[in-house]
């Protein structure tokens, strides 16, 4: 028996309140106003507020925003700092070299640093003032299909007030069916509803996998007199230690306003060592003498984690299906060589809006009609940027010298390189080696967690302000819990306890039997989705918990 559900009709529904969809919603309203169209437009976001789940670097390339709102600088654009100059360092365990040359794509002088949480709030206010109905605190839980089984007709929001067994509690509030002629998905990397659509309609390419990176990020308050008071550069990237030359990833440090700094470490999920702990890698980076010097006397203000879709051009899905479009990170749209996704996500949202307007004018919401988005995309500069980086992630995932040779070749051939298309390493979950007794060095050999500048994983969870109502069905679906304590325990030593940056997964030894037992702390979840991606048995399905739950980021 399914409870009575309300149904609300919209012309266009945006699922997810990230930069892709917010730019899309603003552009849609601009176009509707030009054409004198009265549209009912809604946007849902699973975070309690817009920006509550927004986590990025970020150095912001304004290209898309300039097109969307040429006068953005006069409209309260939330800039943190202007980039004065950049540095790329190669780190060794205790030392570093400033590289004399960095790829042109990484030159950021003149760009602004931003907090994505603030940027999305600002965009949401503008969208709302143009007439978009924004509903934070509502998660899209299920895709609604027409009887034909292939036309997306809307999204069902999650029920609220279920108990752990999934039974309605006293204040149960059933999810409702949001129906729309066009649904635009902007769920960010590894979208859960986009995943559902892919399982049904197969939108992602078969021959090129979706691959990802996981980042842990902090904002740190520095004293007034700090590294950036005198430094000529305020945009710093690192490579090398701790991941070494084989695993893709690296660190970033960006100056923010009010003596704050954004600091993060990215680990490519193609890593092989089952003992690798994403949080430890972050800590190794953070305690490196170069980094420790920059952030000394600081205090962590906020921490969080999120994945990045790093498949690039050849991993792009079909951008349109009947009734729906895909924008931003959930469609693998990311400019990899420049380490940026916000501007290309925004632009893709804007192009999706154009297609939605055209389809509305023609009252044709079939895939053929909505494929106008794909055409616009192919003609746009986003496609050009992505095409240039089409083999970048593949090269980065290569080991040792081969990596440098491929990257070098791509730099001088506009991205073509030696093989084009170059194959990916395969899906991230296939990359893990079985345990072989070598243990990765921990960061903790040189730090003590002082609770201020260096915080342990659980304090980090606290600093993400993540909250979930405890008494709700577990939002992490473990298909076969038996695998965890048998095969996974033996072969990989339960890597979930190490790749999850939120301590959601714990293995306990049962006192009586001496056997391992999986303990889940779903209320710690940071919504990064690393578990679903990296689990070697593909035994974990990440679904949206109750709307409004999750991190409460203010400045990440």
């Amino acid at each position: 028996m399914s409870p009575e559900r309300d149904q609300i009709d919209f012309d266009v529904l945006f699922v997810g309140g990230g930069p892709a969809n917010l730019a899309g919603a603003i552009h849609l309203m601009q176009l509707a106003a030009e054409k004198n169209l009265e549209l009912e437009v809604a946007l849902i976001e699973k975070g309690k507020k817009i920006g509550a789940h927004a986590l990025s670097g970020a150095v912001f390339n304004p290209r898309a925003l300039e097109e969307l709102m040429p006068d953005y600088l006069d409209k309260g654009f939330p800039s943190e700092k202007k980039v004065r100059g950049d540095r790329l360092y190669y780190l060794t365990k205790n030392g570093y070299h400033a590289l004399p040359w960095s790829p042109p794509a990484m030159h950021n002088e003149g760009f602004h640093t931003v907090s994505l949480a603030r940027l999305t709030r600002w965009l949401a206010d503008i969208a709302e003032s143009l007439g978009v109905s924004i509903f934070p605190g509502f998660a899209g839980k299920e895709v609604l299909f027409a009887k034909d089984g292939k036309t997306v007709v809307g999204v069902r929001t999650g029920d609220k007030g279920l108990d752990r067994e999934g039974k309605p509690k006293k204040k149960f509030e059933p999810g409702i069916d949001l129906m729309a002629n066009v649904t635009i998905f902007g769920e960010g990397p590894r979208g859960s509803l986009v995943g559902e659509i892919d399982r049904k309609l197969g939108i992602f390419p078969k021959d090129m996998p979706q691959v990802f990176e996981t980042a842990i990020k902090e904002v740190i308050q520095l004293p007034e007199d700090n590294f950036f008071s005198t430094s000529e550069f305020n945009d710093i990237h690192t490579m090398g230690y701790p991941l070494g030359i084989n695993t893709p990833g690296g660190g970033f440090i960006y100056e923010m306003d009010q003596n704050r700094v954004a600091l993060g470490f990215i680990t490519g999920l193609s890593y092989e060592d089952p003992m690798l702990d994403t949080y430890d890698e972050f800590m190794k980076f953070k305690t490196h003498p170069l980094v420790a010097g920059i952030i000394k006397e600081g205090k962590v203000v906020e921490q969080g984690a999120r994945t990045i879709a790093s498949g690039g051009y050849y991993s792009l899905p079909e951008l349109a299906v009947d009734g729906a479009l895909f924008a931003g990170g959930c469609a693998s749209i990311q400019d990899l060589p420049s380490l940026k996704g916000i501007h290309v996500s925004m632009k893709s949202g804007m192009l999706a809006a154009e297609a939605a307007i055209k389809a509305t004018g023609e009252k044709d919401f079939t895939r053929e009609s909505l494929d106008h988005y794909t055409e616009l995309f192919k003609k746009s500069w986003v496609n050009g940027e992505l095409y240039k980086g089409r083999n970048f992630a593949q090269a980065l995932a290569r080991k040792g010298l081969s990596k440098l040779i491929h990257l070098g070749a791509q730099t001088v051939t506009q991205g073509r390189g030696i093989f084009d298309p170059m194959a990916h390493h395969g899906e991230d979950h296939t990359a893990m080696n079985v345990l072989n007794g070598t243990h990765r060095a921990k960061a903790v050999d040189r730090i003590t967690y002082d609770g201020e500048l260096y915080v342990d994983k659980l304090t980090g969870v606290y600093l993400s302000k993540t909250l979930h109502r405890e008494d709700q069905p577990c939002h992490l679906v473990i298909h076969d819990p038996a695998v965890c304590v048998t095969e996974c325990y033996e072969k990989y030593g339960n890597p979930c306890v190490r790749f999850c940056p939120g301590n959601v997964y714990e293995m306990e030894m049962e006192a009586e039997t001496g056997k391992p037992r999986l303990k889940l702390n779903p209320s710690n979840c940071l919504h990064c989705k690393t578990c679903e991606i990296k689990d070697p048995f593909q035994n974990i399905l990440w679904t949206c918990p109750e709307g409004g739950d999750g991190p409460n980021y203010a400045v990440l």
Partner: protein
Amino acid sequence: MEIIVLMKQVPATESFIEIAQDGRSIKTEDLNWVINPYDELALEEAIRIKETHGGSVTAVTIGQAMAQDAIRTAMAMGVDKGLLIDDPKALGADSLGTAKILAATLGTMEYDLILAGQRAVDDDSYVVGPAVAQYLDIPCITLVTKQTLSDGKIQCERTIDGGTEFVEAALPALLTTQRGLNEPRYTSLPGIMKAKKKKIDTQSLADLGIPSPAGAVSETIAMELPVTKRAGKILEGDTPEAKADLLVKALQDANFI
């Protein structure tokens, strides 16, 4: 039945509070603002009373423009009308000044019942509700966990140390809320849509014809954060019993027991 709920917007409890430059207020940027949880209980109870006895519910708040969000949320729950008193002079008032302004405002409105939170979780002064009742010269029942209405009277249950007290008063009366009174509902998406279309009445003190409060009779001179917790200690033990023993020993060592 005309019901008025006194409501305050406060920083969400998961916020990290920092003290502002002036040393006597808090930094407000980057905070998430929510309805004071005790006022949510008041709103829920008011809406339930309306649902059984008919009438209407009005939420009244003193706040800045952003307090409109709180009123909208209240409306999404089922409140009919909202009044925002937005005036720098009102915001500068202390608890008694706030109560005076609210009482003067309510004096010009119709009401059978007024509901307030027992305290606002930001300033924690426990003053406003009872003081409004005092200024309006109506009965006040504090820390209510249950109420029933009949024949122009309200019967309330209050939890007292070791028991329950039953109190009755004639309407109009003012109640303050206690945890356990109810479980506030979720705001539904259709509710939010309806609330977006409703008008919020925003007034200054002059609009309301209320004289600005004479100088505050109390003043915050300084604020201090609690001393940061020292590093905790996790007691390791194989069984709950062993852990409890260790805990007892630790507490004894610290002369707590």
